[in-house]
């Protein structure tokens, strides 16, 4: 599959969108009466400006090399780090939002979709397994109000045929 990481990123975005939707974060009855969440399919490019309240931004990090799986048969795997930045309107909302995302990704396995022609994605036969999903508090480095910023980090390993 060409450009696997692009499709992995989009699949992760759609999975997070589903998690937020299931949690009611897009409305109409948003938990705690908070502002509806905004899903952004890339990291904010300017951290000197506070994103809109309850922005959830999904981005990808380092992509490891492709490994052979021991079960043979041409099964390969490739792990990519991911980041889900959560900018809550307040501390409690940031913690709740990031908690819902973390719980929805922890030890989850979802099909890898191909978005080349179908906006809803076509199954590829590949699977994504999420691991080491944790919630991080970004270090102080900008003017943002860190109390409302959490980052859900982890790895997304794609299993696919040779």
């Amino acid at each position, binding site marked *: 599959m060409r450009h696997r990481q692009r499709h992995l990123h989009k699949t992760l975005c759609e999975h997070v969108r589903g998690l937020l939707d299931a949690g009611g974060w897009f409305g109409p009855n948003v938990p705690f009466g908070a502002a509806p969440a905004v899903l952004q399919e890339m990291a904010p490019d300017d951290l000197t400006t506070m994103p809109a309240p309850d922005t959830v931004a999904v981005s990808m990090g380092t992509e490891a090399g492709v490994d052979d799986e021991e079960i043979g048969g041409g099964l390969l795997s490739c792990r990519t780090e991911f980041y889900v930045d959560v900018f809550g309107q307040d501390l409690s909302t940031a913690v709740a939002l990031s908690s819902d995302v973390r719980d929805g990704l922890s030890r989850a396995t979802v099909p890898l979709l191909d978005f080349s*022609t179908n906006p809803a994605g076509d199954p590829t036969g590949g699977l994504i397994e999420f691991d080491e999903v944790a919630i991080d508090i970004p270090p102080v480095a900008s003017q943002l109000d860190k109390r409302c910023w959490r980052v859900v980090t982890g790895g997304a390993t794609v299993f696919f045929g040779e």
Partner: protein
Amino acid sequence: MDGFDPDVYRDAMRVAFEMAATPDSGEQPWFGFDDTITNTGPAAADGVPFNPAAVATVARRANVHVPCGVEYADASEQPTPFGLMSATRIVVTLMDEDWAKVSDCTHVLLGGDKYLRRRVEPPSGLFDVGIVRVHFTAVTET
């Protein structure tokens, strides 16, 4: 305010801005805007289609020049592994009527360099005239 003509003031300020501008119009500040990207198939958030065979259609809006004042500040620190902590920047001052023509700009081209829009200062003015000051930071330096 009696005796204050907002149009006269605006025109006088525009003349002052143009007096200080370089005579080469191509080197003067030109406000630029985001491209409008159209895809026939699925695309990522930055507008690039997922299908390598698909080609996005890019509509480019023409740059706009309006009279404005420019204050330039050179990069004041040495480069760090994180980049310049205080990059070269400009502060552009415009009359409210002119800002209305370019308020959705994303960058300014000035003297062959590109400056990205960062933030607009809190509103200020003189009686009936709004004065807008916008901060930009350099992404290219020649």
